[in-house]
């Protein structure tokens, strides 16, 4: 049942992006067990007997005054994490073979992550880019921030071709405070160039997650006959045979993805391949796992 709400094809039928994010996140969270991690925040969790060595700041002195016993107050985990979502709006993101464009899927994913961050009172920000930074919402946990984020995501339209070096050079300036950086793109570049471009973000103490959004047709094209393909970004046309798409392209694509994965792992970057035919919960689960590691 939950899968149904997270199915991209279903989400595409929902008009408002905020509603999409709420539907995804609420449906996703209600299917999760509550986190076993505890922290020190405003949400009370339980009492625990004082043990020598515990920080006296967390002792509930009111209880001590009434019972002369020392208890520690425990709260649900909460941090002041800064989450920055980098959304690729290049022309190649306009592609979609199943009625759902990659851009649309990326919007859903970005909105869901922003909404999830908002629920966790993280300071969330948004950067929309293609070969330039097109839109920037500074990270904040203020009231109304979620609407600003969603508005920004909604306004993101595909524009020029993907050139990661140029926008990511500016991104370093925007991300002054260390936090969690989530990059959502189809990364149509050589893996080496991609990792070389995004690695500086990681070196600033940020946790970096790469969501590699690809259409199933990109991963494994299924052609009924020889077709003339046109590159969405460069406009180059080329006739392609099904034999090539079935065998050689598939091999090259697999090598490309494997290269991306290994290079990301080498740079201590979390990498996750997102197939637009699959529900969003897998990507969200990946995000939460990495988010939990930040605590």
């Amino acid at each position, binding site marked *: 049942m939950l899968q149904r709400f997270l199915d991209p094809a279903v989400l595409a039928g929902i008009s408002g992006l905020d509603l999409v994010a709420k539907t995804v996140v609420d449906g996703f969270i209600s299917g999760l067990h509550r986190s076993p991690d505890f922290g020190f925040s405003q949400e009370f969790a339980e009492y625990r007997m004082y043990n020598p060595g515990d920080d006296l700041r967390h002792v509930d002195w009111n209880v001590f005054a009434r019972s002369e016993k020392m208890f520690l107050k425990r709260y649900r985990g909460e941090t002041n994490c800064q989450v920055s979502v980098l959304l690729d709006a290049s022309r190649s993101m306009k592609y979609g073979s199943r009625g759902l464009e990659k851009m649309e899927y990326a919007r859903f994913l970005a909105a869901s992550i922003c909404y999830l961050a908002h629920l966790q009172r993280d300071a969330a920000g948004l950067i929309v880019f293609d070969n330039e930074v097109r839109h920037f919402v500074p990270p904040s946990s203020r009231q109304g921030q979620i609407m600003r984020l969603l508005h920004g995501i909604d306004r993101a339209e595909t524009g020029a071709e993907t050139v990661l070096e140029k926008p990511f050079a500016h991104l370093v300036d925007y991300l002054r405070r260390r936090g969690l950086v989530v990059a959502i793109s189809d990364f149509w570049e050589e893996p080496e160039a991609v990792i070389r471009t995004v690695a500086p973000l990681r070196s600033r103490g940020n946790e970096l997650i790469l969501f590699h959004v690809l259409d199933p047709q990109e991963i494994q094209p299924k052609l009924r006959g*020889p077709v003339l*393909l046109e590159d*969405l970004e460069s406009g180059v046309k080329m006739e392609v*045979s099904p034999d090539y798409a079935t065998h050689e*392209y598939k091999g090259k694509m697999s090598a490309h993805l494997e290269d991306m994965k290994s290079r990301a792992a080498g740079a201590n970057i979390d990498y996750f391949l997102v197939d637009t035919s699959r529900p969003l919960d897998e990507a969200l689960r990946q995000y939460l796992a990495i988010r939990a590691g930040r605590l």
Partner: protein
Amino acid sequence: MGFFSPWFLGGVLAVGLPIWLHLLKRHKTDPQPFPSLMFFEHREQSSVQHRRLDYILLFILRTLMLVLLALLFANPFINRLTPKGAGQKLVVVAVDRSFSMRTKEGTSSRLDLAKSEALNVLSKVPPGQKGQVVALADTLQAMTQQTADPGELRGAVQAIRESDARASFGELARYLRTLSESTKTPIEVHLISDLQKSGMPPGFTDLRLDQDTDIVFHPVGKVQTNWTVETVIAPQHVYDPKRVRISATVTGFSAPAATRTVTLLMNGKTVGTKSVNVPENGRGSAEFTGLDAASYGFNRCEIRIDSADGLPADDSYAFSIERTDPKKVLFVDDGQRPKAQQYFRAALNATEDAAFQLEALRPDVAATADLSKYAVVVLNDLSSLPNGLEPSLQRYVMAGGSLFESIGPGSVALASGRAPVLDEAIEGTRYASREGERFFPVSDLDTGHDALKSVERFDGVKFYLAANVSATKSRVLARLSNGTPLVLERKVGEGKVLAFTSTFDGANNDMPLHYAWVPFVQKSVAYLGGGGSTEQPANLSVGEYVELRTGNEKGAQAEVQDPEGQRVLSLEESAQARNFELTREGFYEVRTAGGKRSLIAAHANRKESDLAVIPQESLDLWKATGSSGPPDGSGQGTGGEGKTTPWSLSPFILLLLLGVALAESVIADRYLRPHAQPQETKAA
């Protein structure tokens, strides 16, 4: 070269379809967007070029298919030199050996003359020319294969023997048509025959010959005066020799008025002699009454005339008769319906020489009588059965006896409530009032049944009352209009029971007043007691068939001895043959697979006795059906001048079309079928 149907060439316009599909439609392909061509290489265009070549091959094949299809319908042909043009020819010598060829012409028979003529014809056949000798009667017998060996052909002519069958020129024409189709060469036929008019088929079209068949007539003999015994009417079975009547018809063909002496011989002894005045080209008859000389069993009889003509073989007519005692029919009558016995007996004795003899007994006497000596037992609507009668009847029928029972109002009163032996419940009677002409006619009738063959559907017979007998075990042969079964039959053990659900005395129906009464009684009794129409006739013409088994006697042996007393059937034939053809005159002793013995007399078909010949006009017409030239009657075949005939190329085009279609299917399947995606295992 030409076309039988050139207008179908318009179908070539359909070639535009593959042109449109391959050349026009293909270039309208729109480019499909793709995110990045990073992993595609330019060298892949060569693959597309290769595919274009495949498309071109497909295009060529499809275009060729349409062109061939149009050509196929247009049916092209070329003119070829026929075998006739090449000088090849088959000479067929047909020698008539029918019954009439026994006619004497001076000191020789017509068959001898015909054989001499055949040898004469064969001597004129050029060396190396293929020939065939056939013997003509009611069927055609090929004496040789097609051969160029003159010795073999002459030997075959010498081997021809006279036959008792009649000539059939229609059979000869049919054979020649078949031969012409199979050999594809011109045929020159030499028919050596007395050319009897009676040998012509009923329709002239049966004589037609193929275009390349030339027939040459070699008449043998002249029209002669001939007297013959045309028919003999004699009973097959004789029960009372004094009442037997035998009549013979003597016919004169092309003969003046004359007086002929007719002699009846029985088993080689002269029984009687009569003189018959035969008018010019007419018939006279002689009648013999009484056959005291007939002994019990089969008698070989013959009617003979003194004709002194050229065909003495048709002066005698063989026939056989069997003398036997009439079979006994027991009429069990309790006296309640006295007229029934009277009507029944009258019907049974309606013929002069009755095959059955009626004997009446009261039920109590019949209960103790030996029923096995009766062919049929008739129960006349008995209202009560004395002790022992029904078990006795049951045993009698089980052992193969036959029971004919009338079930009327009297039988309704039977204590058992069931029809004796038939074992069907009697559920009262169905009564129609005589007032207002209310009656039940017969509605359903099995007219193919031996007992009901000549009853004319019981036309006009009114049934006022009938017993309502259930038909759970029996077969209903006739039914009244209200659905009541009228005649039922059931096989019990080896015997059979026939039930009539009304009475024989006319009280409950008016059947004895109608024509149907006599045949109904006679056929029913004959069916139950054996004989009658179920028996095959004993006097047949040569060429007719004798039934040896009905199909029920599996494995039983049949036996036939020809007039010389030789066994005719092989072991296999005697175990399996269903019938046997009479091939010559004389007496055949036959024992069927069912064990029934009979003496069959075979005589030549008397149409052979009419020696009138076919008019020359008819012969010319016959000859004209096979020759393209005007009939000249000169007896010379057409020459060997060059001749061409259109030769259709359709079979070859059809083969080519099939090959092209096959190639198109293979190539289309190979290059246009969507490629199957390899199975992939993905981590869950």
